């Protein structure tokens, strides 16, 4: 009389588990582990690497007393809001125009999207050159006879952010456009017939019928683009190095500089924890919506 041993459930489907090991390790050790580590040690005193003295919120207090950090936060908020707004409006308009059964659709699309294949370093350097006040657009237009023409966004504390914006929009709008186009074309074509029968103008149909129906694509695009904006770093390094002065500093650069250039790790960890919190504030409502919806459907 033998009782067949039940296989240990841990070893069931063993190959798949082994195959998924890199993924499991990445999620547990990197995404969860490293993030938690950063949050914990953001409460430590450390300047270099003996991280064992905990000092409560001291790093955060210092962080929010530092004008460079405050400027960084303000910059990323202004940049983020404007960049989202502009890239969504332009991206959607371009997608709607391309959707008009135009000729050379592929050519136009290729042109609008190519900057997205370039790195932020390349983007930043090109626009630094074009916006260069002494030899770029400003000087060119002046040489055409408009002596008082001024276009020196990049050289002024008050406007350097808009210079970054021009470059960022140039690089990223094509991506928004591609997703919007996918969204527009994903809408049932019957809608168009119905709208035509009702005599609704085309632009109204886009704005009041198609846009609301694209909610899913919109929200996903928003989350992806917004998460990208929080990471903004390379573009600033290549284009302005945070200048003039500290006028175009951003949080990601603050973290990098304190971590590697100034060896003030505790400060950097506190700053990155604030970044993490920001992303979670964007992310959690989205996750909640997505999963709440799926559960409701079941």
């Amino acid at each position, binding site marked *: 009389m033998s009782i067949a041993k039940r296989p240990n459930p841990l070893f069931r489907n063993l190959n798949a588990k082994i195959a998924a090991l890199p993924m499991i390790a990445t999620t547990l050790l990197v995404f969860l582990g490293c993030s938690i580590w950063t949050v914990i040690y953001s409460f430590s005193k450390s300047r270099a690497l003996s991280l064992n003295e905990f000092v409560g919120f001291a790093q955060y207090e210092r962080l929010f007393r530092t004008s460079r950090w405050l400027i960084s936060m303000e910059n990323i908020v202004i940049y983020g809001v404007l960049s989202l707004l502009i890239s969504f409006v332009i991206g959607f308009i371009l997608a709607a*125009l391309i959707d008009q059964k135009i000729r050379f659709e592929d050519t136009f699309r290729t042109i609008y999207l190519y900057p997205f294949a370039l790195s932020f370093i390349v983007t930043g350097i090109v626009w630094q050159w074009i916006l260069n006040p002494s030899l770029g657009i400003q000087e060119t237009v002046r040489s055409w006879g408009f002596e008082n023409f001024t276009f020196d966004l990049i050289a002024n504390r008050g406007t350097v952010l808009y210079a970054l914006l021009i470059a960022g929009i140039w690089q990223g709008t094509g991506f928004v456009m591609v*997703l919007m186009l996918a969204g527009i074309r994903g809408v049932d074509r019957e809608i168009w017939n119905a709208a035509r029968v009702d005599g609704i103008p085309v632009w109204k149909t886009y704005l009041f019928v198609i846009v609301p129906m694209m909610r899913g694509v919109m929200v996903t695009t928003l989350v992806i683009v917004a998460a990208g904006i929080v990471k903004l770093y390379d573009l600033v390094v290549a284009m302005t190095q945070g200048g003039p002065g500290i006028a175009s500093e951003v949080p990601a650069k603050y973290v990098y500089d304190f971590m590697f250039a100034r060896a003030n790790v505790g400060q950097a960890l506190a700053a990155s924890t604030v970044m993490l919190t920001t992303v979670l504030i964007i992310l959690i409502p989205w996750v909640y919506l997505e999963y709440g919806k799926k559960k409701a459907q079941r």
Partner: protein
Amino acid sequence: MTVEPYEITQTKPSKSFAIEPSGAKPLRRFNPTRIMLYSVLLVAAVYYLLPLYVMMMTSLKGLPEIRLGNIFAPPVEITFAPWAKAWDTACTGLYCEGLKVGFWNSVKITIPSVVMSITIASVNGYALSNWKFKGSEVFFTILIFGSFIPYQVMLYPLVIVTRELGIFGSLQGVIFIHTIFGMPILTLLFRNYFAALPEELFKAARVDGAGFWGIFLKVLVPMSAPIFVVAVILQVTGIWNDFLFGVIFSGVKNFPMTVQLNNIVNTTQGVKEYNVNMAATLLTGAVPLAVYFFSGRFFVRGVAAGAVKG
């Protein structure tokens, strides 16, 4: 019973990119609205193409001509000297060996990173789509949402980890990091692709006695060429364009092309040679641009994959 050879050329995401336009009813060929439409599209195209044009023109001019101050004017006298200098002798702060060093470093970083990350992610995606186990979806969900965490948050612990492993500041170090951070998007890509394949295929292979690895290598991989192409394109452009990981994890000797480009252009000493800078910028952008222009729709599928959930 014969199983029809399925035509597997599409993943779910690409459906929405079908060529068929489905928008408003086409208007008559040439009326004011139509002309307006094309004008707007052309103006936009000029804005997008302008930087490429300016880069090209500037890189072919001599410095005296640049100082005249018209960035849009084509060169009076075409010179390729800036290109030669950018490639061969431009100074990156410490030494003057040009961008070629960075180019080869980028090659040495990109190829192994692409191979590693795709190998691992394709197996992951396969396990997740065909061999779900308890908790596999949970890990996958964390992986996807983890990809939204700013890299800065995980940077320092990873520096410690790579230092402990003895690979900080080396090619292996940066390859390791690229493999980790390529995982979410690639796993998503492969999981969705494999999940969209007909299940009979998988069942038939199991009946024939193929195991986990057998099915993957002999059945799925041979029929998944398109998705591997998409993944390669996505990774080559992404890794080539990376700056942050390169500057931190690869070490001065192995700085990739983007880091070297930035060092050449934003170096404070000496005369600013705008023509050399622009040639260097074009050289750095050349690889992803070539990939983009030759791959067309595959690139679009790659960048859209993250947005269209499966």
